[in-house]
């Protein structure tokens, strides 16, 4: 089905009772050219680009639960391309450009909202670092503006500017950054991929790989039977180590929990996305009015999809330092998601040492913004057997070669990225 102003009007006239389901819930066939493991945003985007960009339509996406039940549906929906290191800068901007045309490409309202992302700075050193990052972005054709105190005051008069310990001095603003509706991104890719013939198979957990005499992967064992595959692409986010282990691989990845929080709805307050540079706190306001925020990961390995209280306290303290008046706002909901924390904080998109098995992993807690870009470059790798030029630095062997992309500069410490 195609959405348009006429389909909307037609459905409105019949009391919105005629909407049809947007994608097919398929049953597995015996064999596909490409099988994608993981029905999150990245897996579904990969399938869509395989079909739409590379003409490979005999594709299945296998999801152990329901699509979007992983991090795709658990994140705080921030999109931006304000990265400073070679490798990241180009890739995230490619992704941002795909966000900007996503709704037209998919014929689906993913509510991409370029309301701006501002990173506040609180010291001279931090201002210099942000100025440098902003310059790197601009050299690469990405928008960035360094705001001084007066400009921030005008934009966000409600901040606690008199904070003696963390005085707000200004911020680095990317106006093209913002948010997108995360569930709609999942449904949009499913809708568009399914229309091109991709099978989306839910409640289908991959429990092993089928290998031929040479060790090449020729299919997957699943809770719904064995499925043959020309190539298998993994996009399982926080489960990468577990799935890779089924093929005998150990990865430079640990799994950690990140929590997110939503307050009760209040009147429009926060203009875009705001990050507190002195601690780790980021916040935006949903279209319904709730403050959506988060901060650090819990800091220890976890697969539990729930966090613990000390981080909740820390995140709320970060919020209070910036905006003391939110202390009276009630917290409505909190949840956790399990992410791959890679050893340098950057993603891995590569062939694995196992023939026929391809890896898309290590997104840490910043992979939502990467969703369209990740799908695009992973589809390229699967279709052409060589990395897309904007993902050429995301190779698996970069740790061995000493070519890490350590945007945060903390080395091989996944719980600090």
């Amino acid at each position, binding site marked *: 089905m195609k959405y348009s102003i006429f389909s909307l009007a037609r459905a409105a006239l019949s009391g919105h009772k005629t909407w049809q389901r947007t994608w097919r819930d398929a049953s597995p066939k015996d064999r596909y050219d490409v099988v994608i493991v993981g029905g999150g945003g990245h897996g579904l985007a990969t399938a869509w680009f395989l079909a739409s960009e590379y003409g490979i339509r005999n594709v299945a996406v296998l999801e152990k639960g329901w699509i979007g039940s992983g991090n795709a549906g658990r994140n705080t929906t921030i999109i931006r391309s304000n990265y400073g290191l070679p490798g990241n800068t180009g890739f995230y901007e490619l992704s941002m450009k795909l966000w900007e045309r996503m709704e037209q490409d998919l014929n689906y309202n993913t509510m991409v909202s370029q309301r701006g992302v501002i990173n506040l700075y609180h010291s001279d050193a931090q201002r210099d670092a942000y100025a440098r990052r902003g310059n790197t972005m601009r050299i690469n054709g990405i928008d960035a503006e360094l705001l001084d105190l007066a400009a921030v005051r005008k934009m966000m008069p409600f901040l606690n500017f008199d904070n003696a310990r963390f005085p707000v001095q200004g911020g680095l603003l990317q106006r093209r950054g913002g948010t997108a509706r995360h569930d709609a991104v999942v449904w949009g890719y499913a809708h568009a991929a399914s229309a091109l013939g991709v099978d989306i198979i839910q409640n289908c957990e991959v429990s092993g790989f089928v290998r031929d005499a040479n060790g090449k992967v020729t299919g997957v064992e699943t809770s719904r039977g064995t499925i043959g595959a020309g190539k298998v692409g993994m996009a399982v986010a926080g489960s990468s*180590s*577990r799935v890779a282990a089924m093929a005998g691989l150990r*990865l430079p990845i640990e*799994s950690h929990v990140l929590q997110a929080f939503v307050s009760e709805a209040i009147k429009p307050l926060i203009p875009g996305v705001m990050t507190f540079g002195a601690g780790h706190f980021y916040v935006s306001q949903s279209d319904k009015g709730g403050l959506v925020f988060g901060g650090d990961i819990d800091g220890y390995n976890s697969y539990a999809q729930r966090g613990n209280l*000390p981080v909740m306290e820390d995140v709320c303290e970060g919020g209070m330092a910036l905006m003391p008046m939110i202390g009276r706002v009630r917290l409505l909901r909190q949840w956790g998601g399990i992410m791959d924390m890679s*050893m340098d904080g950057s993603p891995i998109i590569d062939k694995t040492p196992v023939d026929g098995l391809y890896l898309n992993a290590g997104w840490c807690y910043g992979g939502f913004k990467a969703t369209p870009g990740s799908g695009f470059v992973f589809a390229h790798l699967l279709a052409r057997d060589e990395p897309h030029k904007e993902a050429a630095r995301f190779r698996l062997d970069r*740790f061995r070669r000493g070519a890490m992309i350590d945007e945060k500069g903390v080395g091989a410490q996944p719980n600090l990225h």
Partner: protein
Amino acid sequence: MRIVCPFCGERELGEFTYLGDAKPVRPAAGASQDEVFDYVYLRDNVAGGTSEYWYHGGGCRAWLKITRNTLTHEISSVDPAAGVGAAKAGA
């Protein structure tokens, strides 16, 4: 999650810092590049029971060796990890 420190008793998680998987052992000087790569970067990343080091910085400042289930956060044992800090620091 609360941790029962063998020296201080039951304390809240905020007093402790996670110091990583207890399994990797620092390779001896002169180890091969592969062994060092393995130690620094690769992880089993176990889903289930695993043993790990924690530091009781908000209490007795001892290093502890804890057996914990990463799927449930359940802790089954906490022991003093005598000498581990010094060994990790290469002292």
